[in-house]
């Protein structure tokens, strides 16, 4: 691919920024710890990537579509799954089933609010997330139960040198990519995101597409919650908090159009790595919290400007 062709891909910018942050950290250590840092970025980036893929599908549905219940869904799914497993060996799969079922339930509830009550998705998912949060508190009062050993080992383990959670994230990314690029459902989603009314009039089953999308984002969030709790040694009531803004940020930094109808799978991964690496870089340079925030915000805006002005020129 030519250089011009490369720069026309909006996801390039997220990857370039991630590489830059990576390099800047290594400058400080004079090259030490490159492997460690990459490994950590892949581990923690995986969680952001998984929720980001879900959020991307929703944002692809068009303006106004966004899921703000991701953190609460992660917490609820992880809480219920870990409570069920109660550190007992051999319960990992039923626990996973419970987490995914929670995801389906949450997605169905969110979509019911949006479809039946016609609430704007922003408000519907925000309001519903408060209810999920209550459910999580009520179900086990914030006790941090350890995952079964086997599951914890899987979540923190590696395969062929890459973290297992990153493999999961990569597999999901591949799946979403195939879905969007090759499948009927992906075409329908992209059409609905560009013009919902035209899609309905062109025979696209738009309600089914919307429902499936809201189910998908919740299932992805539930899975991320389950993995994160297993990875970090238990579910906490506030475990999803940082993934609210994170999930939106990785989608837009990754080059997907916030106006819908256009999505970008590789960009989500690039942005997920970037979001981890930039904080690591600033921490390594000893930036205080204030500086860190200002720089993070500035860099996010800079990436978005770079990505968009490129696109306009082509």
């Amino acid at each position: 691919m030519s250089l011009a062709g490369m720069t026309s891909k909006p996801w390039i910018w997220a990857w370039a920024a991630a590489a830059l942050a990576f390099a800047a950290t290594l400058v400080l250590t004079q090259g030490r710890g490159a492997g460690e840092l990459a490994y950590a970025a892949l581990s923690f980036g995986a969680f952001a990537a998984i929720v980001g893929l879900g959020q991307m599908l929703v944002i692809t549905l068009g303006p106004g579509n966004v899921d703000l219940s991701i953190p609460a869904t992660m917490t609820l799914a992880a809480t219920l799954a870990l409570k069920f497993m109660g550190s007992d060996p051999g319960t990992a799969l039923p626990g996973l089933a419970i987490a995914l079922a929670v995801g389906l339930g949450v997605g169905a509830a969110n979509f019911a609010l949006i479809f039946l009550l016609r609430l704007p998705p922003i408000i519907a998912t925000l309001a519903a997330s408060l209810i999920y949060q209550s459910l999580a508190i009520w179900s086990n009062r914030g006790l941090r139960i350890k995952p079964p050993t086997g599951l914890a080992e899987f979540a923190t383990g590696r395969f062929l040198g890459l973290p297992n959670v990153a493999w999961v994230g990569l597999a999901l990314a591949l799946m979403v990519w195939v879905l969007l690029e090759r499948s009927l459902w992906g075409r329908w989603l992209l059409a609905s995101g560009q013009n919902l009314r035209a899609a309905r009039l062109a025979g696209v089953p738009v309600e089914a597409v919307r429902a499936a999308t809201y189910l998908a984002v919740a299932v992805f969030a539930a899975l991320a919650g389950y993995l994160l709790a297993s990875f970090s040694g238990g579910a906490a009531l506030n475990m999803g908090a940082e993934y609210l803004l994170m999930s939106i940020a990785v989608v837009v930094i990754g080059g997907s159009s916030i106006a819908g109808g256009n999505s970008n799978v590789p960009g989500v991964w690039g942005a997920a790595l970037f979001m981890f690496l930039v904080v690591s870089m600033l921490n390594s340079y000893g930036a205080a919290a204030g500086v860190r925030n200002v720089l993070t915000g500035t860099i996010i805006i800079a990436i978005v400007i770079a990505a968009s002005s490129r696109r306009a020129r082509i």
Partner: protein
Amino acid sequence: MNRYRILLPVVSLAVLLGLTFWMQPRAMSYFGVNLLFNLAVPIALATVAQMFIIMVNDIDLSIGAFVSLAACVTATWLNDAPLIGLLAMAALILAYAGMGAVIHALELPAIVVTLGMSFVWGGLALFLLPTPGGAAPEWLRAIMKVKPPLVPMAVVAALLIAGVTHLLVIRAGLGTVLRGVGGNPRALTRAGWNVMQLKALAYAGAGLFGVLAGMALVGLTTAADANIALRYTLLSIAGVILGGGEFTGGKVSPVGAVIGALTLTLAASFLSFMRLSPDWQIGAQGAILILVLTARLIFARRGETT
């Protein structure tokens, strides 16, 4: 539909107020009403700020962080050196206008830029006040504690905000043109308007009301903290929608937005008067939000059939 747009917020506020008074008759007094609503004043101002952005088809994820920053400036510079403080406030408003211009000129998605800016505002607030503190200027405290005859300050302030913004946005010619930006920016370009300037103006309006929200908040709390108003981002969006606004098409109602802010504040109080179990107090807030918005459905159906 237009007439119903404002009817729903009014009705939901009235019903909620009735229920609150029935449950807590003590609230039905000059003192009580002021306590119920005084913290809604900064929220109403922030909601109006958000409305300026939603009016031009954008959404502002940074207003909470911005109000926090404005509060920190108020409690530090404005208190210690009023002139510098005022200059800083003007700079903040200009920064908002610049943000609007950049968003338009580079065709950036506002949601992303404001997301990034929320980090920037938050970081600046941490610079200014690494630990909670500062103090409200005396005059500001005096304004927020004033006790007008018959009607408490909170109500007077809400009426004032609603009235002024209604004049600015709905009645004034320029406000009408600004709403047009949300309706069809292309039409404005064709009519010879510089849409970038108009957007900058709308953002400056948001910045102005954001700054006012920060000041009002500090006047009530007497001190600031870098995280003081983060919650306003989502509250203000909910308030605009509750007040009959829509995310696209320049359909907003300033009076509705103020009522929306009052309703949200009242809803939280109403729940605490219900003395739910702590487990469910959080969820009940979500439930009541859903309930109030569901009423929109009924009104929307009514609107369709006319």
